[in-house]
């Protein structure tokens, strides 16, 4: 039930958007989020976007990890 993958928002019409992962596009309800714009990545659950992916936080996670692992070498 949990689609654990982020999908890119490629269309918005009122409260409904189309989110895409690779070739697959699905309709998502945007009513649980505040502002969204095209190009945002969404966390989708049962047809609803439940969060907008925080791109900065995503980068930061990887940077911290790489630093940690470099330190080890």
């Amino acid at each position, binding site marked *: *039930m949990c689609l654990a993958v*982020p999908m890119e928002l490629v269309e918005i019409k009122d409260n409904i958007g189309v989110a895409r992962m690779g070739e697959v596009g699905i309709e998502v309800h945007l009513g649980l*989020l505040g502002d969204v714009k095209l190009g945002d990545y969404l966390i989708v659950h049962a047809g*609803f976007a*439940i969060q907008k992916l925080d791109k900065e936080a995503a980068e930061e*996670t990887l940077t911290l990890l790489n630093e940690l692992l470099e330190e080890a070498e």
Partner: protein
Amino acid sequence: MKYIDEYREDRTIRKLIHKISEGLKHYNNEIVLMEICGTHTMSIFRSGLQRLFPAEISLLSGPGCPVCVTPNAYLDKAIAYSKLQDTIIVTFGDIFRVPGSSSSLEKENAKDSDIRIVYSPLDAVKTAEKNPDKNIIFLAVGFETTAPLIALSIRIAKRRNLKNYSVFCGHKLIPPAIKGLIQDKEINIDGFILPGHVSTIIGTQPYQFISNDHHIPSVVTGFEPLDIVQGVYILISQIVNHETPKVQIQYTRSVKEKGNSKALDLIKEVFQATNAQWRGLQSIHKSGLKIRKTYRQFDAEEKIEVEVEETKENNNCICGDILRGIKNPLNCKLFRTICSPENPIGACMVSSEGTCAAYYKYADIGRDDE
């Protein structure tokens, strides 16, 4: 694909696991971690992480598969509803095949019942609009991730004045279940891997009791292999360095301390907490949701009376003990012999997030050392 591939990078995963092993060098005790969420369980098995972690770490699967923790009594009532005249049952796919005391929705559908599987609760509302002369009952089974969606479907039904839409609410809440597990004397857990999407909705505040009252570390974790390894790294660091236990967030790209306030408001508007039965964990104080009085015209249990058969458990199925983390599927006599995804005896074999289903599918690359 972006935001996926980076978190599946094999070399980084192996390096980080190596670092975890190094950290454990001077630590002589076994460490038992529990992942609450069924999607974590699946990801761990699919990526073979179980085999890569050092032997000192045991990973247990917890009660985080919504269909698995739904007790027979709920299934029996859903089956009873499905036999009523002029009734359409609408449900997510997973629960369709789960056996109740003597039947399943799948079996009833093959007879006279009309049971429809949908992807989104909004499809259930649409079904109600298209079939004004039928009663539509949506089987709401899930955790905090699904609850706001159900709440929204009820609000939409109210706005559209749909009199034939109702919800049979079996929703459950994760933090009280964790409390139940901690208080269970048979279970000893050193750290919790908390669910990423439940926490996307509720944030981290509801978990503070885990560290404040019980001094157990926990970490909200994402679903890719690297997320999970980093989550384990965070827990191991807290444990090995004897840090003051705390709730940390690994999955920062989706989870904020305060959660999703719009979703939380919706849950609060439509539902209130109630005591609930969990398969394996029995009744847990305020661990479920029920529909508030203001929306009672959408509550199937308030609106529609039905006679339900006496609930029976299948004594050979140890799904309940597996959900508490005290047994695993290999301890079940029926596993692979009689019980399989084609012929599931218990809920844990039906759901794609169920532990028995995960073992069945991936056992040879999973816990082959047991």
